[in-house]
């Protein structure tokens, strides 16, 4: 899952990015409105965390422009908590609204819900054969037994599971699992896939040669 954070307070931006990376997300950051919009339009993020008060271009403007081209789920982050601000945010096209100061756990839960909703899933648990993926707890059960996955492996499983039945290209996977700071070694993905197959069964992820991967 790849997330963009647009926030101008450097300490907040840094710790948010760190916390989200530790949750297994690929995180891109922008510290002003113009960069934020540029990033948001240039890449298919799974979600965007958008501050309202930004230099150069405020959050409303970014949202308005972004909505012309993309349906990326957007979570607005703001210090304004009056209901007319929330209404404005939601009406402008924000998918959710979190008021500062917030709890990290709440922010994470809302992000998960956003991503789940955008993949048309209504529950936290995805069942594929004898594999159960709990997207809230971020763990995977095989025949009701927990399976140890690294954060990156889990993200890969979750992404494929959310796009079950579709062929997901390697480019897509790179875009959603790795952020712009990571050099994407072409075989890194294969390593992750082979590790997952070892843990969850070889037939869990199918390879469509020349296209990408797929969970049936």
């Amino acid at each position, binding site marked *: 899952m790849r997330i963009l954070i647009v926030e101008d*307070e450097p300490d907040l931006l840094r*710790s948010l990015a760190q*916390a989200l990376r530790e949750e297994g997300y690929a995180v891109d950051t922008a510290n002003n409105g113009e960069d934020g919009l540029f990033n948001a339009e240039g890449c298919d993020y799974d979600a965007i965390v958008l501050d309202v*008060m930004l230099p150069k271009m405020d959050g409303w403007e970014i949202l308005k422009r972004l909505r012309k081209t993309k349906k990326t789920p957007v979570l607005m982050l703001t210090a304004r908590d009056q209901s007319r601000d929330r209404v404005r945010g939601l009406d402008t096209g924000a998918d959710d609204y979190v008021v500062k*100061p917030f709890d*990290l756990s709440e922010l994470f839960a809302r992000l998960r819900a956003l991503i789940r909703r955008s993949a048309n899933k209504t529950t936290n648990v995805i069942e594929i054969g004898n594999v159960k993926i709990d997207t809230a707890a971020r763990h995977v059960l095989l025949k009701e037994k927990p399976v140890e996955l690294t954060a990156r492996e889990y993200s890969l499983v979750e992404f494929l599971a959310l796009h079950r039945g579709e062929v997901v290209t390697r480019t897509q996977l790179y875009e959603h699992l790795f952020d712009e700071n990571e050099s994407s070694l072409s075989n890194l993905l294969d390593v992750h896939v082979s590790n997952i197959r070892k843990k969850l069964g070889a037939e869990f992820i199918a390879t469509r040669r020349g296209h990408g991967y797929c969970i049936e």
Partner: protein
Amino acid sequence: MIPKSIKWRLQIWYGLILVVVLTGFGFTAYQLERGRLLGRIDDELHRRVGILANVFHPPPPRGPDENGQPFGRPSPGQFPDDGPPGQDPRPPFEFHLPPDAAGLFGTNDPNDFYFILEGRNGNELARSDNVPQSEVDFQHRFNARKQISNLDNLPAPRASLNFQDNRGIFERLPSGETIYVGCSVLPESRELKMTKLKLAGFGGIILLFGFAGGWWFVSRALRPIENISAAAVKISAGDLSQRINVAEAESELGKLASVLNSTFARLDAAFAQQKQFASDAAHELRTPISVMLTQAQTALNRERTAPEYRETLEACQRAAQRMRKLISALLELARLDAGQEQMKRLRFDFSRTVADGVELVKPLAEERGVKIFTELSPLEITGDAERLAQVATNLLTNAIQYNKPEGEVRVTLASQGDLAVLTVSDTGPGIPAEDLPRVFERFYRGDKSRTGGNAGLGLAISKALVEAHGGAIEVSSKENAGTTFTVRLPC
């Protein structure tokens, strides 16, 4: 027990006045009417008495009672034969009205005029046929005779006689006989009773209309008060947007309502400003708190290395410092607002204060490559040097921070009449014209972001400080050419 309500008190007061006026009027009208009716009767009675006196020829005198003893109990010795009239041995005296006078008296109608003729000693000589039969009649006649005897010295003494529903006149003729003419006033008293009822009825109706009209008028006059109190109740309940509906702006209450409305409007504005200020202050505190929370929660998610903890603590410290700065600025503003901040009143050289300020900000200017040019003439003013230094430093810091790289800052101090004028100009991007009036507002920030950790209170504080010294601060700006702040202080 006087009711508390103004409406009722007014109502009672003019109700009372109305009752007094109507009663007086009614009484007078009644008396006039009564006088008119009775006067008419009296005129008729007098006329008839006069006619009777003219046509009456007394019977020839009879012996010793020639002495003119008018009436009363005759002493037996003096008038031996003066017994009851019926025992008069002489043939009874016959009196007939002449035909022309007969029409003046009724025959059988007891309501018509009637007459009685009495002899010198009270014996009845004649009477018309319609004299009412009444015991009281005699008593009254006796009283009237007695009354008339006191008037004996007059040539034709007359007395009036009123009893029950009768009114009459007594006249003693020079020959000693008495003529009594009377009539029933029953129709007149009925008429008077009717008049009384009519007057009472009219009075009642007028009173009723008066009350109803008064009620309407008082209600109308007091309605603005009700509007005012209704609006005031809503306002006291917290709805400051309420206004009194002013229908009659010209009346005293209308003026009061307008005054109250403008008071409410100012209160509303003051509250709104206060609310905005509180909300802005809360807003400014939210970001550093978010930083601290996020930093702490991220750090606590798992074991960290010492440098990582250090970094977290440093970020928390920065956020806390920012809050500290904000809170002390807010407190300072609150104290300045409340007028609690005492300004020292000492003579000092303002140019040195400004020069010190320039020294203070030099490192910041060098960091940004901004050059500061000063043109300060020594100038003594009275005031709080420390606070005015704060103003100068704040203006200088702004001029450096919002300057273009390698820009310039010009500081001048000169006297202008009895004013000290300090100007600080920069070569920055300038402030858009529409934002100029707002730069001294609390939490105003040119770039809408929080770069530099400025909350946007510096200029608001500077303004409050300058004004506490009796001075003024103003700003002018040209886009892409720079901004100039001018402070004028009394020397």
